[in-house]
């Protein structure tokens, strides 16, 4: 059963950040030429990989936790309507107000209206994928409301008028010298003698934001989890900017994708073990805030929860693709992905990069709007192995490739090529064979940046209409097998 058939809309065009301006191969080509980006990414992903492996190895029951994490999400999705209604009931009973948003436009309108009602023209924000997805900052700006990002990396990205490139460390593509330059240029009253020592830079950010936190009247956050049976919301963070936003302002507005609900309080005992170890490679992140509605005398006295669809129900309608909604945004799959490590996050064109982005973005927008993303993978399977909730990303990728081909109504050469590629890519063995064949293409290209039209079928039908980057001497799969013995 498909969403189109059931009349369930995907995320609308013209708002938010789920679609890139270029296709993945075009965007990746630029990124592949950026040596600084590749060096930063390589360092970051390998460091986090190592830390993750160490702390995951400490838990003797990781496999059981992972299976519980998967099962809870599957059970949640199977009764998503019931859990959302329970959540709404609990949040309301504890003094919060729940709003429902069909899509990005509606969520932006709701938040703008709520901020306007307080009479303020500036808000502080905690890093949140959902609000990036819907383009909330732009919507607020259009309404004359300044939204200040407070997570250090988000601040760097915002001040640099840039885009995040990693879920967990969004400014990983910037080095300390570049960050210093951004701070000197954009922070009013910053010490002109500021050095590029990370500690000094972090302290400059602290000073810059402190005043804002203390005067803020409205904060906007996302949520990592929401417990249906108690109405408890959870935000997991490191710096304390989240706590500032969740604690000091009078009004708190939380924007949450509907898939973030979990049925019971006990479910957090699973996710609060899986998430930090998979994400930052810590046994526990420095701060986790949990709150249910409003507590007199402690924290915001007005709480609004915005439940966002924006294509999620369309994903839910696909029995295979649905698993992408289980994602807890740990970013472990990014850090092991050989494609991500070389292209970085920007090439994916969406706020959701890497393997999870390749399966989530095309489903949220409809595969026709992100048609190249399901191909942004070598299907090596490393993402599945590290995923703390065991999302079978390679299978969803293959499934979406098939969907994309189905969606081509006319039988163009492209469709035929995709169909053949999809078949080849759906079998690791055939795919390896095809890649070896492409190695021959490299020889034929003789150092030219793009491939000639001399690839063996089926790839030839594809390269006839566009350039394919010259394959490296070693394919990702081969390099992976060599480096990881997999």
């Amino acid at each position, binding site marked *: 059963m498909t969403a189109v058939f059931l009349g369930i809309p995907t995320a609308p065009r013209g708002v938010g950040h789920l679609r890139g301006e270029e296709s993945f191969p075009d965007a990746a080509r630029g990124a592949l030429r950026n040596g600084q980006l590749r060096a930063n990414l390589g360092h970051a992903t390998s460091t986090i990989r190592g830390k993750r492996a160490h702390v995951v190895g400490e838990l003797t029951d990781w496999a059981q936790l992972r299976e519980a994490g998967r099962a809870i999400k599957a059970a949640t999705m199977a009764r998503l309507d019931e859990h959302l209604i329970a959540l709404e009931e609990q949040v309301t009973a504890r003094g919060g107000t729940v709003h429902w*948003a069909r899509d990005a436009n509606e969520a932006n309108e709701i938040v703008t209206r709520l901020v306007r009602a307080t009479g303020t023209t500036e808000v502080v924000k905690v890093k949140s994928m959902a609000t990036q997805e819907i383009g909330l900052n732009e919507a607020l700006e259009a309404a004359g409301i300044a939204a200040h990002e*407070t997570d250090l990396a988000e601040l760097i990205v915002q001040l640099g008028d840039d885009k995040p490139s990693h879920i967990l*460390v969004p400014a990983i593509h910037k080095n300390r010298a570049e960050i210093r330059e951004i701070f000197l240029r954009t922070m009013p009253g910053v010490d002109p003698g500021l050095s590029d020592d*990370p500690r000094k830079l972090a302290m400059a950010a602290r000073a810059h934001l402190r005043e804002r936190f203390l005067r803020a009247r409205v904060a906007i956050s996302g949520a990592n989890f929401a417990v249906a049976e108690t109405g408890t919301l959870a935000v997991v963070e490191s710096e304390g900017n989240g706590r500032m936003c969740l604690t000091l302002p009078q009004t708190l507005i939380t924007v949450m994708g509907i898939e973030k609900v979990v049925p019971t309080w*006990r479910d957090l005992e699973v996710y609060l073990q899986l998430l930090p170890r998979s994400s930052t490679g810590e046994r*526990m992140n420095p701060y986790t805030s949990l709150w249910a509605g409003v507590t007199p005398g402690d924290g915001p006295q007005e709480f609004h929860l915005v439940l966002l669809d924006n294509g999620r129900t369309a994903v839910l309608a696909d029995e295979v693709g649905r698993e992408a909604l289980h994602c807890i945004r740990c970013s472990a799959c990014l850090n092991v992905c050989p494609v991500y490590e070389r292209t970085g996050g920007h090439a994916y064109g969406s706020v959701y990069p890497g393997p999870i982005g390749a399966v989530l973005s095309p489903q949220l927008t409809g595969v026709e709007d992100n048609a190249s993303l399901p191909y942004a993978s070598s299907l090596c399977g490393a993402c599945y192995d590290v995923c703390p909730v065991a999302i079978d990303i390679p299978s969803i990728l293959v499934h979406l490739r098939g969907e994309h081909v189905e969606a081509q109504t006319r039988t163009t050469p492209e469709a035929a090529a995709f169909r053949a590629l999809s078949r080849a890519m759906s079998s690791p063995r055939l795919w390896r064979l095809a890649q070896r064949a492409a190695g021959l293409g490299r020889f034929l290209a003789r150092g030219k940046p793009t491939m000639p039209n001399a690839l063996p079928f089926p790839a030839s039908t594809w390269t006839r209409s566009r350039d394919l980057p010259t394959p490296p001497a070693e394919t990702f799969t081969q390099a992976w097998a060599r480096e990881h013995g997999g």
Partner: protein
Amino acid sequence: MTAREEVLGRIRRALGEDRAEVPEIARDYRLTDGRDPGDPALLDLLTDRLEDYKATVVRCAPADIGGAVTTALRTALGEHSPGDVVVAPGLPAEWRPDGAAEDDGRPAVALADHAATVTGVSVAVAETGTLILDGSPLCGRRALSLLPDCLVCVVEAAQVVGGVPEGLAKVDAVAPLTLISGPSATSDIELERVEGVHGPRTLIVVLVA
């Protein structure tokens, strides 16, 4: 149709008419680590994990809590005036440093004027080095453990449990909870860890046994 009805309607269409039974979740991961709260091995583990995350741990006997807190504050702040320290309203009198102010419900931002805070905790999780504060009078409201730059938490041996499931089972799910594992930190610049961004830069745990 309201947005609520529409989103719920979409979910029902997506899931279809006859829904399969949802299987029970197998919770065959470790629910306890077999040691009782306050077991000396758990206290050692907690100490190790806290220190790993750059917190300072001071051990003391039940009769010496006040002295240990005072000494810890002097080490962290140097010479200071008693009013630089603010304590949770439910903190036992014997734990309080002389002359410390009590959080009396003043506007939260006023707490930023203090250099240090002393609170108790609701429970501590050894395996992850996590302190859970629950907004009770002993722990104070959330802003209290956030704004002053130095946080001193008194943890009693019986409050120390093994793993995360045990810890979460002991707290009230609808209380305003803060899980604290070390001082605030960032690794956003070239992945270099910097302790102390917006939350307290210094975390001292007084472990009582």
